[in-house]
């Protein structure tokens, strides 16, 4: 049985199979509308995450399956002190597959070791969020037509942003990717990621402070929020925050076919005026998340 705990649990071939299947769903959704009839997805959300949970639920319902679960630790047996191991043992007999969001890092891995049904990590603390990575890869693949030969800018909080870490881990497996890491000094990518992933990869990277200077070279810009609470003093935050707000003026510097991605929720790092730009694909990206999760559920249930 296969689980999806880390983005790297899937080989490049398996990953491409899922992306291809997601594309097939978009092209012929009716072909898949009853494929999970009689199957149940358990959504074990120990912390609130409306967007991800609803995306999983929509995915299973689109496949003709059913959904059960809880949406906060308070409304589950976790409030009584039940362990993840015990919860998943029980849920395994109620459902056919489960998606787990947990504030503690590694909780889905623990679940997978005790589970008799496939476990999908729907986010564990600041650690992994593999279905977001699948969504990001699908968006890039679908809208750029390739996952190689790309100059990819990551902008904002590169230190704490798990979606950035996961996507870098996934993209280094493709050829001729140039990573442009745009962040304030205080929010640079963690050293371990630079040393263990980027330095050991055949792909190139650069770390810069100025978004405008590199915008013309980018094929993709992955925006994340610069979080005020991460700064030691407000002066630094005020000095830096505006450098990373993407607005229409900055977009004039970008290529005509550059894409702007964002894992959402967006706060103020992308001005709403950018939303109408055809290169702003973050809402499309969220929509694609449902198709990717449908494909993943089908693959893990071995119905496709």
């Amino acid at each position, binding site marked *: 049985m296969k689980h999806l705990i880390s983005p790297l649990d899937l080989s490049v071939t398996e990953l491409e199979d899922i992306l291809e299947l997601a594309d097939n769903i978009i092209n012929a959704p009716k072909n898949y509308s009853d494929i999970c009839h009689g199957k149940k997805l358990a959504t074990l959300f120990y912390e609130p995450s409306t967007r991800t949970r609803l995306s999983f639920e929509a995915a299973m319902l689109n496949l003709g399956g059913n959904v059960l679960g809880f949406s906060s630790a308070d409304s589950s047996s976790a409030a009584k002190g039940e*362990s*993840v*191991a015990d919860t998943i043992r029980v849920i395994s007999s109620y459902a056919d597959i489960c998606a787990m969001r*947990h*504030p*503690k*890092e*590694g*909780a889905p*891995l*623990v679940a997978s070791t005790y589970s008799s049904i496939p476990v999908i990590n729907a986010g*564990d*603390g*600041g*650690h992994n969020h593999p279905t977001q990575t699948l969504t990001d890869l699908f968006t890039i693949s679908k809208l750029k037509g390739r996952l190689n030969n790309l100059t990819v800018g990551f902008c904002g909080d590169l230190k704490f942003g798990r979606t950035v870490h996961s996507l870098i881990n996934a993209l280094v497996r493709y050829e001729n990717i140039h990573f442009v890491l745009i962040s304030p000094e205080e929010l640079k990518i963690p050293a*371990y990621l630079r*040393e*263990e992933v980027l330095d050991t990869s055949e792909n190139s990277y650069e770390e810069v402070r100025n978004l405008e200077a590199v915008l013309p070279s980018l094929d993709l810009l992955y925006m994340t929020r610069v979080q005020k609470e991460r700064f030691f003093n407000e002066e630094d935050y005020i000095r830096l925050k505006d450098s990373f707000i993407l607005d229409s003026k900055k977009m004039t510097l970008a290529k005509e076919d550059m894409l702007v991605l964002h894992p959402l929720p967006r706060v103020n790092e992308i001005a709403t005026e950018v939303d109408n730009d055809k290169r702003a694909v973050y809402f499309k990206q969220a929509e694609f998340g449902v198709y990717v999760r449908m494909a993943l559920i089908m693959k893990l249930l071995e119905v496709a």
Partner: protein
Amino acid sequence: MLNIGGLNEGIVIDHIEAGGAMKIYSYLNLEKLDCSVAIIKNAKSNKMGKKDIIKIDGNLDMDLDILGVLDRNITVNIIENGEIKRKRNLNLPDKVTNIIKCKNPRCITSIEQDLPHIFKLTDKEKGVYRCVYCEQAFKRS
């Protein structure tokens, strides 16, 4: 009676980072041995400036490679007939279970009872061990 200057039969755990001997003593449960054990703290070292040394007047029946997880610079000298019979650096094991604990408060090991603490060697050159659950690197200090 243990001669601090030398051993006839036993083990010398050398090049322990200064201040680290008690941690090693505790990990190896040396208090349970009925042979003599000497802990030398802050010994002068050309290589390290200061170091700790543990001398055990007897044999230990355990895999000492595990010590490399706690302090990768340690060397182990096996003493026989008053001479160093073998002197070796420790080979870092690929995986260790319940030797070191994950200190990441966001890790599932911080709340889940009876979960084994498992670390994997992810960078052999630098001796980096990461928790299999949260991937946090183990810090030796």
